[in-house]
């Protein structure tokens, strides 16, 4: 036996644990796979009973998601020049033509601007506040920190009505700025607390060394503390983004047009004769991607950061 056979699990153990992980992954991923699959079904396949697991994939859902269509008479359809591209072809097979782009792209961009904007603001303010709480003697700092945390004890939606009225007065309803501020307000307590934990873990000596080396306090913060806190900042950013990206209740209440985000928009996609499920599923699939990509990009940091500094040396 080799020297590390003591810690190395046996082949059987590996297979069993591997199998368990796969089984768990399948169970949790089924709803997700279902959504992705539905996005590639025809409306009929999407609602067929019993549900179809094997089907002919089509991009109809995606075409419907990105376009608005109008019905035309068969004669009009005849008189049109031959369809350009696959999208045109699919739409015509239903006796319709593409009238223009849908609002999905716009709503999606709203989500991006508001989601990433509020994440940036939360993490930016959170880092500064966390640094101050971590390094300086702040009068009543414990009480202040508790107060910051307490803003999270009540579900945000409990204050929906006052916020709705306040936003109307301030003209912030249905604006990007309004939604960014709102999500920042909700996220900032989390950001301050998480980041304070991370910054507490960074030895002060690093900054002090920079102060001695002739840098100002701000330079020391910027050049020495920030790179050290990258892990914490990345994981905090992911938590903030996930909340802001998926938030539904406030989005429904406070946005209806200009600043509407994707979550309230997607379920409202109507096709011929009711809800267009493949289009909804296509929208949901695309909606999942940014958080997924963001998380994968920051994965390296996240894996280390999620242990809240326990593994730093």
């Amino acid at each position, binding site marked *: 036996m080799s020297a590390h056979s003591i810690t190395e699990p046996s082949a059987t153990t590996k297979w069993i644990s591997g199998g368990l992980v796969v089984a768990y992954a399948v169970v949790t991923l089924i709803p997700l796979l279902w959504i992705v699959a539905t996005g590639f079904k025809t409306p009929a396949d999407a609602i067929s009973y019993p549900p179809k697991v094997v089907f002919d994939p089509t991009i109809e859902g995606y075409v419907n998601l990105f376009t608005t269509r109008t019905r035309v008479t068969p004669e009009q359809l005849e008189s049109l020049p031959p369809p350009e591209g696959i999208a045109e072809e699919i739409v015509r097979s239903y006796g319709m033509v593409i009238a223009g782009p849908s609002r999905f792209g716009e709503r999606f961009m709203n989500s991006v601007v508001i989601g990433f904007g509020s994440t940036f603001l939360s993490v930016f303010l959170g880092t500064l506040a966390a640094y101050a709480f971590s390094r300086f003697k702040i009068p009543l700092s414990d009480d202040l920190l508790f107060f910051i945390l307490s803003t999270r004890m009540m579900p945000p939606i409990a204050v929906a009505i006052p916020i709705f009225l306040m936003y109307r007065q301030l003209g912030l309803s249905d604006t990007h700025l309004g939604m960014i501020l709102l999500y920042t307000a909700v996220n900032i307590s989390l950001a301050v607390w998480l980041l304070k934990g991370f910054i507490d873990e960074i030895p002060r000596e690093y900054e002090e060394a920079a102060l001695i*080396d002739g840098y100002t306090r701000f330079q020391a913060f910027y050049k020495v503390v920030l790179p050290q806190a990258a892990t914490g900042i990345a994981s905090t950013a992911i938590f903030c983004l996930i909340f802001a990206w998926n938030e539904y209740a406030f989005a429904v209440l406070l946005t209806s047009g200009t600043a509407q985000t994707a979550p309230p928009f997607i379920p409202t996609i109507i096709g011929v004769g009711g809800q267009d499920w493949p289009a909804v599923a296509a929208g949901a699939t695309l909606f999942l991607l940014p958080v997924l990509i963001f998380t994968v990009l920051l994965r390296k940091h996240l894996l280390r950061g999620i242990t809240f500094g326990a593994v730093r040396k």
Partner: protein
Amino acid sequence: MAEIVIRNLRKEFGDFTAVEGSSFTIGDGEFFMLLGPSGCGKTTTLRMIAGLELPTSGEILIDGEDVTRKPASQRDIAFVFQMFALYPHMNVRRNIAYPLVSQGMPKAQVKAKVAEVARILGIEEILEHPVSGLSGGDRQRVALGRAIVRSPKAFMMDEPIGALDAEFRERMAEELRALHDRMGATTVYVTHDQLEAMQMGDKIVVMNHGVVEQFGTPQEIYDHPATMFVADFIGSPSMNFIRFEGGFRPGDTSVRLAGAEVAVPALREEADGRRLVLGVRPEHVHLTDAADAVLRGRVEAVEYLGTTQIVTLSTVNGPLRARVASSEVVRPGEVAGLAFDARTLSLFDAGTGRAFVTAANEGVHDG
């Protein structure tokens, strides 16, 4: 190059006083030791000199200029931290270059400087390494490199070799002292190891509970401790304390102890019927059968140390240790007479712990 003057320096953390009215002067080019047990305020004192901590009161002068309220970045002092505090996200080269970059030095010049420092410290091969994989000794050298690269007025070192393993410490201590002798820059060095302080320092400040107990050369401190704390803290094994009651007047050259007259350096003070302590270093206790023996003791244990041996005896005044040549034959159980070197004895007030002024130590105590 700088002379650092500390005047009545005091630091309070809330209700707790970490440093109480310290005053001492660090001469230009001196290798200066701040010595004391854990928690006595050494680091706090050093941090105040460097500008990392604001004193509650008192003054710090560097080359005659009052820097008490100046930020660290304007004091031109380098600091070697106990755990080195190398910037973890930079490699060795960038760590060493960092203080120069802050001054806006041109790249080529930075490069030359770093190369020179690396050569002095013998770390040329690891310049491109990340600092995370370095051994303790190399980290230490990089930290030193970062300190010496901009030729600051003075160096502050907080137990710089405390984190290294024992065998390496000695070598590093020698390297440090050699580096200092070569550059001649004022260095303030914190340690809780009295041996290290004695070996390396030009001057030593001994601190205890935030108070400066004594300030002087290693020899002054060893031979003429100003307080019982210093006497006990410095030297291994530490000074013997023989407790007795009695008195003396100025000019006396002996005290009565357990019925015998013990010759001491001529006294300059007086004391009456007080609890006193006679301090005698183990190496100044002689085993003798002659008539000059002032005490008798029974040998309890003998510890062989090569050239010398430590003999533990029990006497009517308590246990006593003597350092005698290994060539002397001493057996546990036997009774020996004890004699002391008169010139080397210290007398303390048992109540305050303060040493009485004698012909031997006058002019030495100013801590």
